[in-house]
C-alpha cells in the first residue's frame, strides 16, 4: 500500500472459544475464570434441543402448507441461546426474523412466532410485556430502534441494556452503521449482536465487508469481539460481559458470532444453487449441540435418562405447537382495518363501512 497502512488487525486467535467442536473445554486469554454449573450446561442443552425442535416443526409445517414460509435457525442455536440466556429481566431484545432461539429464552410461546409465517398476523406478542421487539423484516431497521430504546433507558436512569440482533448481510445497511454512530456518540447501553452465518441469502460474507465484522466497531469508537458462535459457553460469557458493561455505563459493544446457516435462507430458498455441499459438511462438524452433548456425557454431567427426557419434552412441545398452529384463528377480512390508528380516521372509517356493506351484500345473496 502506498499510504500509511492499517493498524494491525487482531490475529485470528482473538476469536473467543471456550468449548471446541469436539466438546473439549478450553480457555482464552481473559476468560480463565469462567465457569458453568452442570445445571446451567444441562439448561443450555435442553434449550438447544427444544429450539431445534421448534425450528424443525416450523419447516415441517411450511412443507405441509400450514405456514407460508419459515426462516430456519438451524446451526445458530448456540449463538441465540448463549446470548439469550445472558439477558437480565430488564434487558430488551431487538430481533430480526430468525431469532426463534432468543424468543424461546425470553419466554415467548413458540406458537406466537408462527402467526407471522402463517400469515394470520405480523407478530403476536406484546414487546413491552416480553421485553422482546417484534420480528423486523426490513434489514437493519431494528438496529436504530434498539439504539433509541437504549437512549430511553439512559434517560430513565435504568440499569438495563439492549441486545440488538442482525446478520452479516445487514452490516452493509446504512441504518446499522448509523446505529453504531448513535450508540457511540451517546454511549448508549446497547450490545450489537451480529450472527455472521456467512450468507445473506446467496451472497457470501466477502461481498458485505472487506474486514472482519467485529473490527468495524473500533472505527466507531467502541469494542468489537469475535466469538465462536457455535460455542454456547463463549457466546454466553462474551454477551454477559458486554451487557454488564453496557449496564454499567461503558457504552456499546459489537459481538460478531461466527456461525453458519445450515439450512436454506427460508423454505423458499435452494442453497444448492450458490454454495457447495462440502462447506455445509465442514460446518456440520462444528454443530453447537453435539459438542455440548459430548461435554455433558464425557464429564458425567448428564445421563441417558436426561437426554431421553429432553427428547420427550421436545416431542410434546412439537405436538402442541403443531396442534395450536393449525388452530390459530383466521383473522377475517375486517382485521385489515384494525389498529391502523390510535384515534379514528374518517377516511378509513368510510372505507371500512363501505367494505362491510359490500361484504354484507354477499351474505344477502347467499342467504
Amino acid at each position: 500500500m502506498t499510504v500509511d497502512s492499517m493498524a494491525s488487525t487482531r490475529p485470528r486467535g482473538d476469536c473467543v472459544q471456550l468449548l471446541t467442536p469436539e466438546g473439549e473445554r478450553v480457555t482464552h486469554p481473559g476468560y480463565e475464570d469462567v465457569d458453568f454449573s452442570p445445571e446451567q450446561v444441562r439448561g443450555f442443552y435442553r434449550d438447544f434441543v427444544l429450539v431445534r425442535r421448534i425450528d424443525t416443526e416450523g419447516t415441517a409445517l411450511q412443507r405441509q402448507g400450514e405456514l407460508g414460509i419459515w426462516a430456519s435457525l438451524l446451526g445458530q442455536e448456540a449463538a441465540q441461546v448463549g446470548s439469550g440466556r445472558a439477558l437480565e429481566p430488564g434487558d430488551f431484545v431487538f430481533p430480526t426474523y430468525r431469532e426463534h432461539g432468543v424468543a424461546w429464552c425470553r419466554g415467548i410461546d413458540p406458537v406466537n412466532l408462527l402467526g407471522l409465517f402463517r400469515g394470520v398476523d405480523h407478530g403476536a406478542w406484546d414487546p413491552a410485556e416480553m421485553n422482546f421487539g417484534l420480528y423486523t423484516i426490513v434489514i437493519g431497521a431494528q438496529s436504530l430502534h434498539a439504539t433509541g430504546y437504549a437512549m430511553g433507558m439512559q434517560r430513565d436512569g435504568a440499569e438495563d441494556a439492549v441486545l440488538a440482533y442482525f446478520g452479516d448481510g445487514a452490516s452493509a445497511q446504512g441504518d446499522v452503521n448509523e446505529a453504531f454512530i448513535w450508540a457511540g456518540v451517546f454511549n448508549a447501553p446497547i450490545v450489537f449482536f451480529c450472527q455472521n452465518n456467512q450468507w445473506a441469502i446467496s451472497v457470501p460474507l466477502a461481498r458485505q465487508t472487506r474486514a472482519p465484522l467485529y473490527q468495524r466497531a473500533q472505527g466507531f469508537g467502541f469494542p468489537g469481539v469475535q466469538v465462536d458462535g457455535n460455542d454456547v459457553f463463549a457466546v454466553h460469557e462474551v454477551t454477559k460481559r458486554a451487557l454488564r458493561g453496557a449496564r454499567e455505563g461503558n457504552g456499546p459493544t459489537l459481538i460478531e458470532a461466527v456461525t453458519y446457516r445450515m439450512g436454506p435462507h427460508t423454505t423458499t430458498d435452494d442453497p444448492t444453487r450458490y454454495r457447495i455441499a462440502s462447506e455445509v459438511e465442514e460446518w456440520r462438524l462444528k454443530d453447537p449441540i453435539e459438542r455440548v452433548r459430548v461435554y455433558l456425557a464425557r464429564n458425567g454431567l448428564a445421563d441417558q435418562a436426561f437426554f431421553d427426557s429432553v427428547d420427550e419434552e421436545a416431542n410434546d412441545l412439537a405436538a402442541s405447537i403443531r396442534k395450536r398452529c393449525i388452530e390459530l384463528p383466521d383473522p377475517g377480512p375486517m382485521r385489515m382495518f384494525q389498529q391502523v390508528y390510535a384515534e379514528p380516521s374518517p377516511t378509513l372509517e368510510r372505507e371500512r363501512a363501505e367494505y362491510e356493506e359490500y361484504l354484507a351484500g354477499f351474505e344477502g345473496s347467499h342467504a
Partner: protein
Amino acid sequence: MSKVTLGKALNLGLRKALEDDPKVLIMGEDVGRLGGVFRVTDGLQKDFGEDRVIDTPLAESGIIGTAVGLAMRGYRPICEIQFDGFVFPGFDQIVNQVAKLRYRSQGRVPMPIVIRIPFGGGIGAVEHHSESPETYFAHTAGLKVVACSNPTDAYWMIQQAVSSDDPIVFFEPKRRYHEKADLDEEANPYPLHAARVLRSGGDVTVLTWGPSVKTCMDAADAAREDGHEVELIDLRSLSPMDLDPVYASVERTGRLVVVHESPRTASLSAEVSALVTERCFYHLEAPVQRVTGFDVPYPPARVEDGFLPDLDRVLAAVDHTFEF
C-alpha cells in the same frame, strides 16, 4: 393576546409540550444550541437540557429510527427535519416503521412521534430547500399529516400533534415563519383534523393549505373586485382529510379550485377532485380546477415565482370555473 410570528408560536407550543409532559423530547440537526436553522426551537435546550432537546448526528434515518426506539420506551419524540428535501434519507424508517408499527403489533406498540418539516418554496433557496413532499406522506397509510398556516394554528396544532398517539407529519410553511398575528393562548383550540372555513362566499370554493392560504386570501380579495365571492377553506389536516366543509360548500357554489405547491400528478388535489366529483357529481357546474406546482423538480430560485401558485394563477382558475 400578543402578536407573534408563526415561528415564535411554534416555539411557544413546543415549550408548552415540553412543560406538560416529561416524556416529550425534541431531536434533530442543530435544534439544540443553535435553536434550529429557523430558530423554532430557540432556547429550549437551555431550559430543558440536553437530554430532552437533542442535537443529533447528521443522519435522518438515524433521527427517525432512534425516535422509534424512544417511542417504544414510552417517550414522545418530536423530530425536526431541517428542510423538506432532506426527509428522504429517513423515508424508509417513516414508511416502513413509524407508519406500520402500530398495525404490525395490533395496537400494542404506539408511535406517538411528530415529524416536523418546514416546507414549500418562495425563500430564494438552493435545491432541496423549497419542496412540498406532503403527498408522499398522505399516500402512506398509518401516518397522519397536517399543515399549519398561521400563528394560532401553529401554536395549538403542534401541541395537539404531540399529544396524539398517532405518528404525525407536521408541515410548517417556512416562508410564513416571520408573519405575525394575534396569538390567543387561552382560546379553545380548533380540532386538529378539521378543515376550517376562513372566509364565506357563495360563488366559488377555494381549498388550500400551508403557505398558499395567504396567497388564496389575497386572491379572494381580488376576486371580490371581479364580482366573485370566494369561500376559502384551509384544509389543515392532509391525512385524514376533512372534506365535509368542502362538500357542503361545493353543494352551494358548484365550483371548486384546489391550490397547492406540490407537483400535480397524483397529488392531494387529485384526491380532492376525485372525492368531490364522486360526492357532488350533480352539483358541479365545472370540473374541479387545480392550481399547483408543475411536474418538474423544484426549479432554481430565480424561476420559482413561475412554479409557485400565485394570485394571478388562482384568479385565472377561479375565472375559468365560470366558463363551463
